[in-house]
């Protein structure tokens, strides 16, 4: 059993609750993610997985409970403040900038770490040239890493679907985060693409020394790559553990297979 000392805890959810009108979308959610983990968050449609992401990244505020990131309370911070602390995420429904090129999409994220002043921006003097080159080169590197270098100058909205998914991951990586949240990265992909994606996720996990939390609807994908899995249904956590434990867990089986369990 892993002992989570405060030092290597990346994310800690403490009794989190969220209501939408009368719907209890997240119920007493508590879990921790440790540094270096590749964790999975699973559950049937409408279980509240994306809501958790939205709470963690400040899109919504919880009605009660706390969220700690690297030992710091981020419960009521705004999205951009949370992102700047080292969090990055992708979206279930792609949120690329479809009319910008793939490269521009990545550069937008990359520039967070290569700032220059307003004066330099309007005169194109000072650090502007150096920093813009850095942004450009580093962005190309990341595109190259996810296999999109050749498509750098194509408008992202015109890329094939699987590539758009990879581009979103590239954009999140460009934020140089410590903690990456992937929201159904494999949605709508064919099996071959899913395999490539698995390799990519495992690859970047090691390469960038990241902590990753993946939402996945398909259990098999998560089982393959995530040693730590949290399963939720109707807003509440129903199980947590390694793939084997999860696979055996009666609540999980019930949630996923419904009536079939009784047969």
């Amino acid at each position: 059993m892993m002992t989570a000392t405060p030092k290597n805890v990346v994310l800690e959810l403490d009794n989190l609750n969220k209501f939408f009108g009368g719907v209890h979308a997240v119920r007493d959610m508590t879990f921790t993610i440790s540094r270096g983990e590749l964790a999975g968050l699973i559950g049937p449609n409408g279980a509240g997985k994306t809501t958790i992401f939205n709470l963690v990244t400040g899109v919504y505020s919880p009605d009660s409970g706390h969220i700690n990131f690297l030992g710091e309370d981020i419960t009521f911070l705004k999205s951009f403040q949370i992102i700047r602390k080292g969090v990055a995420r992708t979206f279930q429904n792609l949120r690329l900038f479809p009319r910008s090129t793939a490269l521009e999409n990545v550069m937008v994220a990359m520039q967070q770490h290569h700032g220059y002043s307003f004066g330099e921006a309007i005169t194109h003097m000072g650090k502007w040239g150096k920093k813009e080159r850095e942004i450009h080169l580093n962005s190309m590197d990341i595109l190259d890493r996810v296999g999109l270098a050749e498509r750098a100058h194509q408008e992202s909205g015109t890329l094939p679907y699987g590539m758009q998914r990879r581009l979103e991951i590239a954009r999140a990586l460009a934020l140089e985060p410590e903690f990456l949240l992937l929201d159904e990265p494999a949605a709508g992909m064919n099996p071959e693409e899913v395999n490539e994606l698995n390799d990519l996720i495992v690859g970047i996990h090691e390469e960038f020394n990241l902590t990753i939390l993946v939402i996945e609807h398909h259990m098999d994908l998560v089982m393959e790559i995530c040693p730590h899995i949290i399963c939720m249904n109707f807003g509440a956590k129903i199980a947590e553990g390694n793939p084997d434990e999860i696979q055996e867990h009666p609540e999980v089986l019930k949630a996923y297979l419904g009536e079939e369990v009784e047969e």
Partner: protein
Amino acid sequence: MSGYTEGIIILLCINAIAAMGVSLLTGFTGIFSLGHAAYMAVGAYTTAILTVEYGVHYIPAILLGGAMAMIVAYVIGVPTLKLMGDYYAIASIGLGETIRLILENWQSLTRGARGYPGIEGYTTLYVSLGFFAVMAFGMFNLIHSRFGRAFKSCRDDYIAASLLGFNTARYRVLSLVLSAFYCGVSGALLGGFLSFIQPIMFDMIKSTELTSVVVFGGLGSMSGTLIGAAVITLVTELFRPISQYRMLIYGAVLVIIMVLRPEGIMGQYELGPRFFRMLKNRFTKESSEKEGEPS
């Protein structure tokens, strides 16, 4: 150069400066405003009062006019820019009209609706060209920098932008404040061009014209904005001999452009290699489609 051409060029520069400001706000940040003539009014009045009553040299006075417009925009923008989409557009009508009404009623300062006469005619061809060149340079640089990308991401998807670490609220305010500066300077130059200003010059019709120019040229294209400003200014001049029909043509052009090419003349492209590449792709595609048709 004849004075008439000169007059057109000066007016063109003035219109283009204001249009660039509105373009940054509407085209690049996605905030639709129908009250920007009010910032022109603030700039014009500030500069007029500074030059006439305090004898300030016109160049610092113009810049202070722009700065005053920025201050007004900041004070207004912080609370109201929380509104999104149509709602800000509607609020901006109210804001613009309110500013104008205040200028009209503050007689001790602005001399009210009778107008403010006796402004030095400082807006010569070279002054207007100079301001235009410097401000266009700054604007083109700005949109080709991290700020430009930030504005565009706030426009395209403000939730995604804030999840890329952008303080979207701050960028929206920044964009408004900068656009107010451009409009303020433009208003100040207009005051120097006419030697006389009246609050009624900066009414909603003027604001609508500014926004139309930007949409006409292409949302998200600075060179499109300049082309739009040029076309609209020239159309009103060219059709001067058929004066009665001029406004009808202006309205019709606006509708036709929206119907045929809603994304504006330039779309979101700048006049550059990428635009021509797009054009080329389009034409080759069109012709190949035609070839494919059964005859």
